[in-house]
């Protein structure tokens, strides 16, 4: 009896590590939809031509290294097109047999692509942060590896509450995405007990983003713009369009710190992050890309690693199996953030800590100590299961 049991145990254990007998092939694509945008306020923020692609290449390399031991071959195609070519590019990728497509696009484009892609394709969202894509407009064929706006805003507000800086002057831009971001800060403030004492809108009046000696004018404009506000602890800038936020630090009327779109920024990644073994990861990326890693690169790396882990662990390569494994309780991914990343099964969002950076160092990482949750502290960031309006995942 005990021999039989032992034999069974050994057999089961052998099955656990049994490697596929025949070669598997995984074809992954990254589709980046490039809208024409003006130059950023800071030239340090110029978009590299391989933005997002380089991260995917590193992820693909990592998968290939592992694949050498599991007899799995990974190929990657990267493509950047204008918004009016997005649908055709998706169709062409599908026709070429790509069923695992990582997309860097704005929310409305991603939504259109997901409706067009159909159930045989799995899209991995490595760009759009719109809440609605994870909520009422969620789609069963999209997994989100990029954090949502509310995960970012919750990450900032938790930190401000830990600091006991609860009074906020919210300055938002005039673009629709700025309004959406501002709304997330309002909700986060209400969720964690911060108070938005006043709101102001910085209207984008157009014109050149940068001019020679532009700082002279900024130094005169911003103090006046922030004058006579209700007493506050921190300015939060909601400036997704990138029009004004970097001008706020040091120029506000009152000597107060800035967070949000400038100052202390919530990010999925930044190039100075070193904790939890990230240094080697940064170096591997820099060696490959010849530049430092951006958020988009981390997110596409994540997308490739989600695919790689799901394929390695499940032994299957089709999009439906990758999706099913990623959403299962067995899925876990180590990604240099100090704990495993998993998907929220009710809306396909990857749970992840949010880094808070001043642009030079990791200032803090949210969730903050003391924000507890019955399932995972990571679910204190963003929409939680009881609040979700997403029903495409069987919820």
């Amino acid at each position, binding site marked *: 009896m005990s021999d039989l049991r032992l034999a069974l145990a*050994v057999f089961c254990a052998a099955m*656990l590590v049994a490697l596929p007998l025949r070669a598997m092939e995984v074809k992954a694509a990254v589709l980046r939809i490039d809208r024409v945008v003006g130059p950023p306020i800071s030239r340090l923020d110029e978009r590299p031509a391989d933005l997002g692609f380089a991260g995917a290449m590193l992820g693909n390399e990592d998968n290939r290294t*592992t694949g050498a031991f599991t007899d799995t071959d990974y190929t990657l195609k990267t493509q950047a097109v204008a918004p009016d070519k997005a649908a055709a590019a998706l169709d062409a990728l599908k026709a070429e047999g790509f069923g695992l497509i990582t997309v860097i696009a704005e929310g409305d484009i991603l939504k259109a692509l997901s409706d067009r892609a159909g159930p045989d394709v799995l899209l991995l969202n490595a760009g759009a942060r719109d809440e609605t894509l994870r909520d009422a407009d969620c789609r069963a064929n999209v997994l989100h590896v990029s954090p949502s706006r509310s995960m970012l805003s919750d990450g900032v507000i938790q930190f401000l509450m830990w600091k006991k800086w609860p009074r906020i002057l919210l300055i938002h831009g005039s673009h629709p995405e700025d309004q959406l971001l501002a709304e997330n800060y309002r909700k986060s403030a209400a969720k964690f007990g911060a108070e938005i004492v006043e709101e102001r809108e910085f209207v984008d009046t157009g014109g050149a983003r940068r001019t020679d000696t532009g700082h002279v004018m900024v130094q005169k404009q911003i103090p006046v713009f922030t004058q006579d506000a209700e007493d506050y602890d921190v300015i939060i800038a909601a400036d997704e369009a990138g029009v004004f936020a970097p001008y706020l630090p040091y120029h506000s009327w009152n000597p107060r710190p800035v967070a949000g779109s400038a100052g202390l920024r919530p990010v999925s990644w930044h190039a100075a992050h070193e904790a939890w*073994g990230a240094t*080697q990861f940064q170096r591997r990326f820099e060696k490959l890309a010849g530049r430092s890693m951006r958020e988009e690169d981390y997110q596409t790396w994540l997308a490739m690693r989600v695919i790689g882990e799901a394929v390695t662990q499940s032994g299957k390569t089709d999009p439906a199996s990758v999706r099913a494994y990623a959403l299962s309780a067995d899925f876990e*991914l180590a990604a240099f953030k100090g*704990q495993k990343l998993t998907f929220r099964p009710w809306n396909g969002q990857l749970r992840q800590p949010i880094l808070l950076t001043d642009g030079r160092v990791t200032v803090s990482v949210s969730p903050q100590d003391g924000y507890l949750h019955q399932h995972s502290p990571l679910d204190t960031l963003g929409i939680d299961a009881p609040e979700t309006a997403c029903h495409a995942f069987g919820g």
Partner: protein
Amino acid sequence: MLRSAVVLLPAVLAFAGPAEANKVFVTNERSNNVTVLDSQSWEVIATFPAGNRPRGITISPDGKELYVCASDDDTVRVFDPETYKELHTLPSGPDPELFALDPSGNPLYVANEDDNLVTVVDVKTRQVLAEIPVGVEPEGVAVSPDAKTIINTSETTNMAHFIDASTYEIVHNVRVDQRPRYAEFTADGKKLYVTSEIGGTVSVIDLTAPEPAIAKKIGFAVPGILPEWLQPVGVKATKDGSRVFVALGPANRVAVIDAARDEVLDYLLVGQRVWQMAFTPGEEFLVTTNGNSNDVSIIDVKEETVIRSVQVGEQPWGVVVAPN
């Protein structure tokens, strides 16, 4: 019957007389030095500079050479354990973190995370003998008691690679949970323990069959501690095959495991972010490095209790005890 007598004999010998005083060397990752403790008085007897960001540490079987991974110097520094003078350096590849010495004292197997290689270094000639391609971000290295097999764990590939020490070829790969950090053979070479920091488990790999296979995965649970913080890192097995100790990182606990059944018996509260561990030669004591409380905890192995903690440098990381 004969076997149990053989197993008992070393244990009896170990407790026959008073423990000898041995030097305990602790690398301090942040303060760039090594703290030397006396294993009888547990007093700090010396501190010496060890290059930039010292982490992995080991000592030659004859006790004459102390090897330190100076991670930010991209080299392995070799010190005289008596004088604390640096003797020379060894080529390691960039950012060495962990390594293992062949039981004979040569060669040294170094995990080279940046290039997905295990570098084999001859400690006498100071030459690189081989570079073995492994998975992404190689980390833990272990050598089997018979010196025939080298284990390397790769943190992003999530495998334990079994490398033939004579051919330097990978002969087996065993998939484990996320971010495998450290590997430890039992003294009889029949089992291998691999910790998965992010996966939160220890894989027990059975080595008695022709193919190594996972026999069990040990999980952890401590009331009041978030499961996310139960992150197994260092692991040490007693020579008598009775106990395995697992450092649980930010959970500030060392798990005591019954090695016969591979089940957790107890959790010992140590310092903050417990990382690596080392036995004294007779296995009377186990020393743990506690990175966030800047101390080491001393565990009485027989009693399975923490008897004291000793302040060392900033962010202690690795530890090794000089042989008798």
